[in-house]
């Protein structure tokens, strides 16, 4: 199929981040002292389970980061608007959109509860004999295949669920066998021995935990995929959009905020922190002044001020942005930058302190005595010795940033209202709190998705910190 690839700024940065992580991984492989703490992480059961969850999220996020524009002919003539000269639609889609096309397209009229076949609000309907009744109308898509939803629905859901579990069990058994076979060949033992070791949890890497977590995720994923074709498994929102689809789309926003913010601020924090500690004197004074000033402004207010300014700029310069997606993406990127500005000061201060300590060490004094240049000393001797601080703070920051996004969107200075994000979902659903019975599904979906990600990140970062922090390692 013909399509026009689109690389939004955040997409570009995500791929840059991916490349960086890969390069880092290759670099670590060659260094025994760097591999040791990672091996400890690998051995941890908690980290293994958390990592499987995180990778699932990352996969969805990546699928959602491959953007393109489809040719207009495919999208139908309805999309052909005046002024579009190109043959491509102005709508920017991602691979995830295409995969979840049924979810995206099946828009109801307004709210409907999870698995419901009826709308949440009553409507007046005319009967054949001319009388009018107030009824809950049937949904256009959710539960359409049922003749008599009240009686058939439970059985239908049960059958579909059973089928989903059966399918995922088959896939899972296949994956288990493949993994055991692979490991058996690598370790040169028989297939059954390997299988027994995995089942008993005797392998060095906790494969049993990995497989169990994978099984749970697989069941949930297959179940959701099967049932979301028949029902709105998490209901629909005010304009009738599927909440499950929204929650999936929000994953990318959460991940972008959690990772790109760090990527954006890292160069400044590392460079300035090390420079302040290494050169001391005037450089130290200036850098300290800059970060004290920035950190003295309450974070939310600085973000609010910056985002308000950006909003004014966008409102007054609409001509600079071609598509809605581009504008929303710019705002997301800008939010990352601003969050980065407010959060680099802590890391910078830590690095300065550590560098101050390091520069008095004998090996650095020796390097200086030998006449090694400053940039080389920093690169070869200081940077590798502060990397653990950088890594720990990167991993620890992630979950806080994901949570911050929701709060900022609530305050009104978060991502663009057109961007799918958990914050926007909560914000939209909050207004319906007063409704009776309550519209709870948007809120719950956002909280559950967010909670899973943040919990996995927190558990993983704990293990990473324990493995890398030399202070903790001694105990």
């Amino acid at each position, binding site marked *: 199929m013909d399509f026009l690839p689109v690389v939004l700024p955040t997409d570009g940065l995500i791929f840059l981040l991916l490349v960086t992580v890969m390069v880092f991984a290759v670099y670590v492989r060659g260094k025994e002292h760097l591999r040791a703490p990672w091996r400890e992480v690998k051995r941890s059961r908690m980290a293994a389970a958390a990592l499987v969850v995180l990778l699932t999220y990352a996969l969805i996020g990546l699928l959602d980061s491959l953007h393109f524009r489809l040719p207009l002919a495919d999208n139908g003539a309805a999309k052909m608007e005046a002024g579009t000269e190109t043959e491509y639609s102005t709508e920017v889609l991602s691979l995830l959109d295409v995969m979840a096309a049924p979810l995206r397209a099946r828009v109801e009229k307004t709210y409907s509860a999870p698995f419901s076949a009826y709308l949440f609000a009553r409507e007046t309907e005319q009967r054949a004999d001319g009388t009018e009744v107030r009824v809950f109308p049937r949904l256009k898509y959710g539960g359409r295949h049922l003749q008599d939803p009240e009686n058939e629905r439970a059985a239908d859901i049960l059958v579909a669920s059973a089928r989903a579990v059966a399918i995922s069990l088959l896939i899972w058994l296949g994956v288990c066998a493949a993994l055991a076979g692979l490991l058996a060949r690598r370790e040169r033992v028989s297939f059954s021995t390997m299988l027994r070791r995995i089942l008993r949890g005797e392998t060095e890497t906790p494969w049993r935990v990995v497989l169990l977590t994978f099984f749970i995720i697989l069941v949930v994923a297959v179940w959701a995929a099967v049932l979301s074709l028949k029902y709105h498994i998490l209901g629909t929102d005010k304009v009738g959009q599927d909440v499950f689809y929204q929650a999936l789309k929000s994953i990318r926003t959460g991940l972008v905020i959690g990772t790109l913010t760090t990527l954006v601020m890292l160069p400044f924090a590392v460079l300035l922190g090390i420079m302040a500690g290494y050169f001391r004197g005037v450089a130290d004074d200036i850098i300290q*002044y*800059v970060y*004290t*000033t920035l*950190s*003295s*402004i*309450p974070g*939310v*207010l*600085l973000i*609010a*001020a*910056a985002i*308000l*300014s950006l*909003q*004014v*700029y966008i*409102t*007054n310069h609409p001509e600079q942005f071609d598509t809605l997606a581009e504008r929303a993406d710019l705002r997301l990127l800008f939010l990352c930058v601003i969050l980065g500005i407010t959060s680099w000061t802590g890391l910078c201060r830590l690095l300065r302190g550590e560098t101050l300590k390091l520069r008095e060490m004998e090996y650095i004094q020796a390097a200086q005595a030998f006449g090694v240049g400053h940039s080389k000393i920093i690169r070869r001797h200081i940077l590798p010795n502060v990397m653990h601080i950088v890594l720990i703070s990167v991993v620890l920051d992630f*979950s806080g940033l994901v*949570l911050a996004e*929701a*709060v900022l969107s*609530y*305050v*009104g*200075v978060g991502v663009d209202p057109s961007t799918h994000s958990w914050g926007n979902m*909560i914000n939209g659903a*909050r207004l319906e*709190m007063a409704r009776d019975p*309550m519209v709870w599904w948007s*809120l719950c979906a956002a*909280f559950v998705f*967010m*909670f899973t990600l*943040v*919990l996995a990140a*927190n*558990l993983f970062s*704990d293990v990473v910190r324990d493995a890398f922090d030399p202070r903790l390692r001694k*105990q």
Partner: protein
Amino acid sequence: MMAYIARRILYAIPILIGVNLLTFALFFVVNKPDDMARVHLGVKHVTPQAIEKWKTERGYDKPLVFNSSADGAAQFTDTIFFRKSVSLFVFDFGRSDDGRDIGLDIRERMWPSLAIALPVLLIGLLTNITFALLMAFFRATYIDVWGVVLCVVLMSISGLFYIIGGQYLISKLLHIVPVSGYDTGLQAFKFILLPVVIGVVSGIGAGSRWYRTIFLEEIGKDYVRTARAKGLSELRVLFYHVLKNAMIPILTGVVVVLPLLFMGSLIMESFFGIPGLGSYTIDAINAQDFAVVRAMVFLGSVLYIIGLMLTDISYTLVDPRVRLG
């Protein structure tokens, strides 16, 4: 001591100037007052006269930093920079974009903020220390392990969930206290109760875990071993020796936020309809009232710097080894 405080105040001045310049740049250089006027009056169908009128009413019609049409000192004083930014140094916040006196608003609204924030801090501190001590006492047992896991789980829940869930459970289902609102005097109690409880609960996860780490670090030290060797009971070691020494890092974290309590909590106040400075700021952000946001940024920085100063002073009070000179 006095000399130290004086020096710290002098240090604070360049920082405040930096904050001031930064907000000035954000609000007046990146976006011209014309842009702000256009946002307020609606982008389309706005006449230049209307923009001029809006600017004149709010004093944004002056040049940014240098007024060439004035004489003498007025060349510098009759500008937006002097009127709007320099005046913040004497806590003259001016008027908000819809004409209210910001200084008066702040003085009025900081008390409700404090009424929520102070109990949250104090009760939260007490609960967190209690939980942390419990975990430290039962360290390396299942109670400790599961306590930490529980803390991580509590930490991973969004703050918004605590508020929405709490409101739903306590106010809507159980009808114990009103959902939102505020009152003066003793009547305020029933409105304050729920925000305080939610504030404390949402902080337990991160707080207890953090304090537990501090306690465990203290427990590993030599004086604790000495105390045990003397034959003191574990409880006495924990409460008498460890708690006392661990208070130093705990205090540092608490004292620095003390002045900021006046600013209130943005989300909590707007959810519960409390007329404090937090909801004031949120309203200003939503209404794009730049004058109020600017004032709050400056106020926040001042309070933070005061907090840092108080921290240093409190060090000398709790730790006799520290001498400020």
